[in-house]
């Protein structure tokens, strides 16, 4: 994570440099977009969500106390946005046609398809993505932050406001849950 560059940009942005905001977006958009995509799965929603996250960054930058903590602050803000959006979409039945959302059903197989055939038909990464998106929010978050965003346990602990031990045990549970959803495809 380019901490120093981010801190400099945050400082410049606070001093009125509009371009610094654009550069901050450029620096983090890939991470934030993929985080959002991992959370809500659907691309248009992910884009909209990522945009809302940066709009909030723009508006609330003065609430950030320590410029060197921009990354953690951004992720916290992003997680809140993701949770809210997820709840909203869920209430609207956005995930209801995706049986993956139900912890018990395992992967969504089209009728008559064997796991092997399905595995051949769909590409692996899509399956993995779907399985991640289908996890319960608390499980999904640690997987996204650790295995996809490659953040350290310290960083995750700060972002989620949980002790490191809790982060680790949550992560282990989340990985086991993911394994149970995907093991038929191995």
């Amino acid at each position, binding site marked *: 994570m380019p901490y120093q560059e981010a801190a400099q940009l945050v400082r410049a*942005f*606070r*001093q*009125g440099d*509009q*371009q610094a*905001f*654009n550069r901050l*977006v*450029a620096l983090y*958009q*890939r*991470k934030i*977009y*993929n985080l959002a*995509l991992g959370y809500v799965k659907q*691309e248009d929603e992910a*884009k*909209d969500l*990522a*945009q*809302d996250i*940066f*709009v909030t960054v*723009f*508006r*609330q*930058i*003065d*609430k950030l106390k320590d410029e060197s903590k921009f990354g953690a602050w951004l992720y916290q803000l992003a997680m809140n946005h993701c949770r809210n959006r997820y709840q909203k979409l869920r209430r609207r039945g956005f995930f209801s046609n995706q049986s993956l959302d139900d912890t018990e059903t395992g992967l969504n197989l089209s009728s008559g398809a064997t796991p092997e055939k399905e595995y051949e038909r769909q590409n*692996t*990464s899509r399956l*993995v*993505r779907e399985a*991640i998106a289908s996890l319960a929010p608390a499980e999904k978050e640690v*997987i996204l932050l650790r*295995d*996809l965003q490659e953040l350290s346990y310290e960083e995750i602990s700060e972002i989620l406001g949980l002790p490191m031990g809790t982060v*680790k*045990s949550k*992560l*282990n549970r989340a*990985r*086991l849950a*993911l*394994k149970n959803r*995907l*093991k038929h495809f*191995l």
Partner: protein
Amino acid sequence: MQCTEAQTLFTDFADNTLGREELHVLTDHLLGCQTCAKEWREFQQILSLVRNLETQTPPADLLPGIHAKLAQRGIFDRAWALVKSLNFSLSIPAAATIFTLAMLAGFLLKTSPLEPPAALSSRPARISAKSHGEVLTPRRLPIAPNTMFAVSHDGGSRNELLASLAQTAPTTRRPAADHTPRLLSPDIHVLIEKIDHESQVVLCREIVRHNWQLHRITANLFLVHLPQAELGNFHELLGRHHYALAPAAAAEARFGYGKTVLTAAIRFE
């Protein structure tokens, strides 16, 4: 060691962070328990699948979309909603004008879109400072979302334009010593109703002809920077249209006297 206990150690095992003792007990269990050995193999496979997922490239219109959202939901619209809610063709009592300005300035200063406007009306001191061209908030520098959408018609480089816009005054007219950061909030709000596209273009051309700096914020929202001394000419231009002004005092040529440059936001409806 129980199977469930063994499996709680998988992440530590994968991270290579198990203590000597635990490592010993776990490997012993895995050697003796086929179920857990299989679980561990699958765990590793899944982990490598997840870690090898490629990140997706964000859509190219992500940043423009952020700009659009800032413009759409931004302070301008909120300010305009307030302007529109009052009928400016009637004369507004001075107190009400100050209140409205306080609301507008409050909105233009807000970072959080969620705070109720009521909390903003108690800042008349700031407003009187504003009308004398002083810095509104020394700490918070101009980061009004609208500044990012500035497009000029004078052909200067983008960075210069943004910088000059952030300083409120046009580059060519700004006194060299004036490096005081100023909040980019319009001094005057103009609402022009029932205007067709052609007349809009004519008005914009006139503004440019007067050598006033013109910035297009959105299709129907423009910012104009003009010398205070030329406010009378500005009124003359507006007089050809059906328009409303806020604050009411801006209808007088000496409005903003003491300031070198005034910023007017023009909204076409």
